[in-house]
């Protein structure tokens, strides 16, 4: 890993040069008290003060709505227009925190489990991630309990860590990252002698995720799911703000009988319709079964099948939940489950 330093005064000129080089910038923008990722028109719009954005950065590779292909009936035949990656922009994702960057591993695991997913992979190829270490956290953050850290470079091409208010340590983790810094070498300086750990937020560990996995693996029939999920109202807020949730639905945007688009859009395993069969049978009939699936999938099935956990501890689900389904609290309870 290559280590550099960039003064705060050089950060925006650097991003401006990257933008002029043909990359769009997708970064957090503060608006009406909420911070969201957006394609910014000017680097001045970027916010770096938030603890957490309302939504994660996953939409850059897995947008909430995506056209997979189009079709048109023509004189007894059907003309298909396949997914066109040619129009996808090259994008610099800037200012995401380590919990968001790390989530592209489980996402990629899902989208490449069997057949590689073309839209996801094409988008990922055009993305370079410049993340920002966390210098502050809130009581919902729990990255350190799920193998992450406020200064982890996993998933990032470059990781910035604020040194006081004057500049940033720059860790260049990949070749993609190198290609962003090398052409602009004059903007960077030698790294100062600082203890990096002291620059990071202290995120206390709340539970052992290995113990959670061990406990829930044998708890399929436990009453705990029913008890924990009793207040869940079955919306999709947790799934939609989650950086690692990848459930989707396939829909048809028909333009009459002759033409249309096949659409992929976000879905949630917490919705009662998610597993409803055409026959009327629903294998996950109650909210408790759906809650059990959500946790087993993230903390048991995914680590075993994809070598990646479906949670990076960003805490968004818990901040967003209308009924305070605090995930870290629930996992701490599961860790202590008697088997």
């Amino acid at each position: 890993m290559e280590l550099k330093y960039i003064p705060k005064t050089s950060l925006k000129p650097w991003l401006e040069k990257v933008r002029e080089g043909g990359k769009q910038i997708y970064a957090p923008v503060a608006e009406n008290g909420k911070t969201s990722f957006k394609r910014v028109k000017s680097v001045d719009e970027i916010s770096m003060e938030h603890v957490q954005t309302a939504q994660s950065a996953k939409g850059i590779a897995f947008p909430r709505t995506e056209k997979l292909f189009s079709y048109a009936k023509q004189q007894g035949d059907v003309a298909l227009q396949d997914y066109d990656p040619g129009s996808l922009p090259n994008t610099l994702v800037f200012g995401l925190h380590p919990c968001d960057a790390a989530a592209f591993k489980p996402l990629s695991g899902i989208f490449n489990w069997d057949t590689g997913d073309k839209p996801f992979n094409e988008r990922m190829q055009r993305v370079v991630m410049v993340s920002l270490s966390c210098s502050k956290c809130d009581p919902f953050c729990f990255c350190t309990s799920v193998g992450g850290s406020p200064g982890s470079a996993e998933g990032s091409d470059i990781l910035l860590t604020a040194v006081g208010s004057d500049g940033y340590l720059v860790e260049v983790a990949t070749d993609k990252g190198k290609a962003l810094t090398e052409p602009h070498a004059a903007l960077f300086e030698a790294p100062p002698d600082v203890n990096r750990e002291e620059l990071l937020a202290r995120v206390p560990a709340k539970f052992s995720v290995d113990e959670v996995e061990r406990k829930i693996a044998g708890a399929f029939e436990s009453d705990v799911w029913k008890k924990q999920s009793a207040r869940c109202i079955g919306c999709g807020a947790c799934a939609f703000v989650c950086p690692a949730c990848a459930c989707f639905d396939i829909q048809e945007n028909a333009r009459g009988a002759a033409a249309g688009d096949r659409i992929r859009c976000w879905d949630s395993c917490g919705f009662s319709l998610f597993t409803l069969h055409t026959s009327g049978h629903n294998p996950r009939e109650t909210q408790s079964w759906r809650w059990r699936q959500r946790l087993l999938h993230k903390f048991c099935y995914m680590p075993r099948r994809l070598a990646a956990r479906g949670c990076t501890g960003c805490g968004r689900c818990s901040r967003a939940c209308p009924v305070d389904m605090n995930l870290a609290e629930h996992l701490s309870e599961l860790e202590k489950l008697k088997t």
Partner: protein
Amino acid sequence: MNELRSKVKALLGSSEIDLFVGYEQGTRLPRPLLAASAEDADKLIFDERCTGNLAVYLTRKDLMGGKKAGIAASYYALRSICRLIDENQLQDGATKIFALTPQGALTSLETIADVKQLLQETPAPAKQVEDAWVQEVEEMPAAERWKFWTGELAKCFKCYACRAACPMCYCTRCIVEVNRPQWLQPWAATLSNMEWQINRVMHMAGRCADCGACGAACPLGLPVHIIAHKMVQMVRQHFGEPADKGATLSTFDPSDKENFIR
């Protein structure tokens, strides 16, 4: 607080109820607690911070099926309970209702008549923020207003937290999920998001308790509750207080000011 706990324990102990829908202390604010045992009941709290509309749980079949329930009802939950009884979703007298009087004392309500009596005696919580917001949006020129709503609703990702949090959204099959024919495009996009919110609120005309749970539930902080608030204002303006007149949009009244109804 202790009074509620002991009353709920007694009701659970004597099997008069199987489940009590109340509040417990949450991460930051009080949150719903579905208490089924004395141990659960010891966690109950009920004070002026408990404003969430718990009536949403009373129509949940997977929780309530065949069970006798009690509830700690905030002002707006009481209004929702009246409507749910009017719409035959709850049986009058079947739910043990606890509420707070304007003086903050715990009271138990047996029937819809008791609930309506307490609602009459209790001043409605002020809606200054919502009133100001509606006024601000109304005063915008049409083009600016369009920009405001398209800007806000473009962000909606259709998690349906607004629907899930609403006690009046108890349909087992929502119009957005009907696909033959498909009335609304189910994916997130600015226009279909607007269609969803307009449909949601239209279905609330004369039914909405104006509790604001839809807006409070939105993980993106979109002001979807002010659409419902405006609807409540309009219904009141055109049809009077809906409380004692049945459902505004499905009640036939020969003295209606519109001619087409006759």
